[in-house]
């Protein structure tokens, strides 16, 4: 080993020692007087080892600093010092400097450590003065340590132990600007990565397999007998996939590398702000790709700082609000559905939605009318708009109101999403969703002109195909700007061929009405930007490997990189935001899609419906809220087994319903490709064959429930001159498979005694059916009542315990407010959670509902929201965690 290697070894070893020191010091502080000797010993040993080797290498600053730290730690260990905030502070700051010096070991002599030395010494001398550690003793310790290295070098560190005076004078000439606490040390993750030997061995094995496969392939190709090419290609395929997986594994790092710095951040911030807070970290062993780990540090830091600064109240405020003075911030990571979820949740004051709206109007982000129309969720999302800050006074802790916008932009750039939820008085949660890796991106491949391009799925919100015949109606020009009429909104359009100046095939030019002339529009989103991209053709969805473009192309903002397709050709990856800029698309605040869907659902008498035709002349409607997803299949994928049609897919079979077998309907049009509407009944999935989808739109729910009523059909209405029958999926399913329901609750007659029973009051027959089917599909027993009076009578009838009430507000005889009031004033019933499902959304109504004792306020009719809220409320009420009186108290 030469000198350099020894120093490098020292740096690596010291970094290992210092890696956990921060959390360990914090733990020591948390223990207070109850000293965990083993823990203190661990830190002591770490610092001691650094000191020893530093002495050997004549790194005097490192040695001096670690020596003083060791002295203080020794006093703590011997219980002569009780660690408090001051001592921990000094130790933490010293550890920071120590780390900085170790990481930049060659210049460690230039760092001014005198401040730390003085601080640590005064702490040490403040303890029982009987234990000063004299320099000679120190040298002996150093010698202990060093003798394992080289015996003859042992005398050198002794010469190098400096008196404090030396140390100060030596550093006086040093660069002072560099002296204070260094920030942002470069973590070792950037250049080096630790890989377990097991993973490497596995990779090695796979490399061997790959070589074998290649040899086989060469041999087979050489012998010109293509006999077992199939098996070789299968083998190659398998080996390649495994190698891909194994290589991905080498890039995995535990999220702890990011999380570990936050206890310190929270602690320091709380100190500055005079707040108290516990940081609870969960899922620190979740493994994430290196690229993600590197990218989430800043956004998370921002969110944590926000939570402490804006989220948590001061201890006095907390006590006044009846909470413990110490706040709690949860930082959690977990995998779900192929995504990484990161949650930062505080139990602070929550976000006052009304104030958000006020601010947004005051800052000109939205108009007063828009503010009035916004629901609570959209209002909360205003904090992600540029230039928004709710802190009345700007602080230097959470930035100057650019923060959440930047967080959102950063996360979306990674292909992730950000969402926020908040309850006044209970706290705020921010959820980040990220892809597992940035190196491999699921993308849609499209063609435009002769070129193929990849669009990351994360930027795609939906695909729209406009048929030649509908083009005049749906595609229109406003002042030369093309727009698409999509569910009542105008969506700006960008032609890819135009933006990239490519020759496009003629079919898509504005005035062309050719035969094959479907226009393919990809609705893309990036940040606040939402527009439709016209391409010539759609190809497959592929997982693509992102490759950078060379430096000659660094100004091509239309592309985020390139990838290599299966045939070896290069395809460029489109950058949705850059493309919009290229097409000089005015960056406007486009409405959230969820918003428009919600507005549809929220208007009192309409609901989002999927329209489709079975035979081409008969139109049907299904509420969007019931649909799990849509699948596009080939006609020949449908098997008939004993008269029952099933679809083989995803390794399982999906039972299919044909409309004409269940209700009076003409047989479906024979088509090569058709759609299947997949929905859930209890724990099962079932598909309804819907050959041709027409539209998704808001449909009035004032329906004729007599003319076409039959099992499976709720009623009918006329849409644009077409009689459209509204289907009841649950009834259809029950008619086809009565056996499925033998053990499940029958409508309006609760049969499964162990399942929670929900009392439902709703006067509109349509919504009542919807609500019953949502709730029954989720496995609850439901008693549906036509108004509040009937519900109240049912509640008072003895013998039937209910677990939860779901009610409409506007009903004849007894409205929802009165029902809630009665329930909450009845001692035997007041424990029941009450969820209002309503189209009334004005502030006064919400307030009135809360006063009446309504626990949750949901806008008609979001299935997921409903079932989630019901589940959550039931859970809470089972836990007894939320007493009704508390609930009403905190809302008002």
């Amino acid at each position, binding site marked *: 080993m030469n000198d350099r290697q020894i120093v490098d070894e020292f740096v690596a070893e010291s970094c290992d020692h210092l890696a956990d020191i921060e959390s360990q010091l914090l733990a020591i502080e948390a223990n207070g007087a109850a000293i965990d000797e083993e823990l203190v010993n661990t830190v002591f040993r770490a610092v001691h080892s650094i000191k020893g080797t530093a002495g050997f290498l004549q790194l005097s600053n490192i040695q001096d600093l670690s020596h003083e730290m060791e002295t203080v730690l020794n006093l703590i260990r011997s219980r002569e010092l009780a660690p408090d905030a001051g001592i921990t502070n000094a130790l933490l700051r010293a550890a920071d400097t120590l780390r900085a010096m170790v990481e930049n070991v060659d210049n460690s002599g230039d760092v001014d450590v005198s401040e730390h030395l003085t601080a640590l010494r005064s702490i040490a001398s403040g303890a029982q003065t009987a234990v000063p550690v004299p320099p000679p003793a120190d040298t002996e310790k150093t010698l202990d340590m060093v003798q394992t290295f080289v015996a003859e070098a042992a005398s050198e560190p002794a010469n190098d132990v400096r008196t404090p005076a030396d140390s100060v004078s030596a550093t006086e000439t040093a660069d002072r600007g560099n002296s204070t606490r260094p920030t942002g040390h470069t973590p070792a993750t950037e250049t080096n990565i630790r890989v377990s030997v097991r993973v490497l061995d596995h990779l090695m094995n796979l490399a061997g397999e790959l070589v074998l496969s290649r040899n086989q392939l060469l041999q087979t190709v050489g012998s010109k007998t293509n006999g077992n090419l199939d098996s070789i290609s299968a083998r190659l395929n398998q080996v390649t996939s495994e190698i891909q997986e194994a290589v991905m594994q080498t890039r995995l790092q535990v999220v702890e590398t990011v999380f570990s710095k936050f206890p310190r951040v929270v602690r320091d911030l709380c100190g500055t702000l005079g707040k108290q807070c516990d940081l609870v970290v969960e899922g620190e062993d979740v493994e994430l790709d290196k690229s993600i780990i590197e990218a989430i540090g800043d956004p998370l830091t921002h969110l944590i700082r926000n939570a402490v600064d804006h989220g948590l109240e001061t201890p006095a405020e907390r006590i006044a609000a009846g909470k413990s003075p110490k706040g709690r911030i949860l930082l959690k990571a977990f995998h779900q559905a192929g995504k990484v979820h990161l949650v930062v949740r505080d139990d602070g004051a929550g976000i006052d939605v009304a104030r958000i709206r006020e601010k947004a109007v005051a800052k000109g982000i939205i108009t007063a009318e828009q503010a009035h129309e916004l629901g609570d969720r959209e209002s909360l999302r205003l904090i992600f708009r540029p230039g928004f800050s709710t802190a009345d006074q700007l602080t230097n802790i959470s930035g100057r109101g650019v923060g959440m916008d930047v967080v959102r932009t950063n996360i979306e750039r990674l292909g992730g999403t950000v969402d926020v939820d908040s309850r006044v008085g209970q706290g705020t949660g921010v959820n980040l969703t990220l892809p597992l890796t940035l190196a491999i991106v699921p993308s849609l491949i499209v063609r435009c002109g002769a*070129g193929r391009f990849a669009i990351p799925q994360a930027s795609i919100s939906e695909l729209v195909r406009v048929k030649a015949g509908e083009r005049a109606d749906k595609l229109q020009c406003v002042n030369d700007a093309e727009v698409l009429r999509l569910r009542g909104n105008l969506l700006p359009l960008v032609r890819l061929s135009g*933006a*990239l*100046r*490519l020759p496009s095939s003629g079919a898509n030019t504005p005035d062309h009405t050719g035969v094959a002339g479907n226009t393919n529009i990809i609705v893309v989103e990036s940040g606040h930007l939402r527009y439709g991209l016209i391409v010539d053709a759609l190809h497959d969805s592929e997982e693509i490997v992102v*490759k*950078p*473009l*060379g*430096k*000659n*192309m660094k*100004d*091509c*903002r*239309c*592309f985020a*990189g*390139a*990838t*290599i397709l299966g045939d*070896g*050709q*290069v*395809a*460029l990856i489109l950058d949705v935001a850059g493309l919009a800029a*290229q097409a000089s698309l005015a960056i406007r605040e486009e409405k959230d899609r969820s918003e428009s869907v919600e507005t549809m659902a929220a208007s009192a008498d309409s609901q989002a419906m999927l329209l489709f035709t079975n035979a081409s002349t008969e139109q049907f409607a299904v509420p969007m809220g019931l649909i799990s997803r849509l699948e596009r299949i080939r006609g020949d994928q449908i098997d008939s087994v004993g008269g029952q049609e099933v679809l083989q897919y995803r390794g399982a079979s999906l039972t299919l319903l044909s409309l004409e077998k269940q209700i009076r309907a003409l047989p479906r049009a024979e088509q090569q490709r058709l759609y299947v509407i997949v929905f859930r009944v209890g724990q099962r999935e079932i598909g309804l064959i819907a050959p041709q989808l027409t539209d998704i739109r808001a449909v009035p729910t004032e329906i004729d429930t007599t003319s076409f009523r039959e099992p499976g059909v709720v009623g009918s209405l006329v849409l644009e001159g077409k009689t459209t029958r509204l289907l009841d999926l649950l009834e259809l399913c029950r008619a086809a498979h009565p056996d499925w329901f033998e053990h499940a609750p029958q409508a309006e007659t609760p049969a499964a005694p162990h399942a929670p029973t929900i009392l439902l009051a709703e006067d509109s027959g349509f919504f009542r059916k919807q609500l019953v089917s949502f709730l029954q599909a989720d496995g609850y027993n439901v008693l549906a009542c036509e108004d509040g009076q009937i519900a109240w009578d049912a509640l008072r009838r003895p013998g039937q315990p209910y677990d939860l009430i779901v009610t409409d507000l506007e009903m004849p005889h007894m409205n929802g407010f009165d029902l809630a009031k009665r329930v909450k004033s009845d001692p035997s019933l007041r424990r029941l959670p009450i969820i209002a499902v309503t189209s009334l959304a004005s502030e006064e109504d919400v307030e009135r509902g809360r006063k009446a004792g309504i626990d949750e306020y949901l806008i008609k009719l979001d299935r997921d929201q409903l079932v989630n809220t019901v589940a959550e409320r039931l859970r809470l009420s089972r836990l007894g965690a939320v007493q009704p009186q508390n609930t009403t108290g905190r809302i008002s």
Partner: protein
Amino acid sequence: MNATLEAAAPVRSGDVEFVTFCVGDLLLGAEICHVEEINRHVDVTPVAHSPEWVLGVVNLRGEVVTVLDLRWILGLGNNVTTATTRNVVVNAGGERIGFLVDRIADVVNASWSDIKAPPANLNGAQGRFLQGIYELDHGLLAVLNMEEVLAGN
């Protein structure tokens, strides 16, 4: 004469090998140490809005490599791909960059001392990209100044 030579090319001595190729009517040479490989990856994917001297990108065994238009850089019009077109891949400071040439010729051994300065009447654009001229038995070889070529326009 000597002064001009030194201005155009830094003092070099010893022997040198050139990969030679044709672009238009010119016979060009690139120092062999710059050249990583010569291949037939001439099916270039164009990149919209890229600089004019960039033809596009190709897949070089899994790496996306930028391909420059040497004709455009030398002011000889735009590239025309034919059956003899080849992609010369060079290493430019860690990044691989290819450029298309009309035809590959021989490897030429020469000595730096035999390389003459470009003639004074060679106009600006081309002059910048040429390091010197080497006389072959059957004609002249223009030695490319690789640094300048790779720097783009």
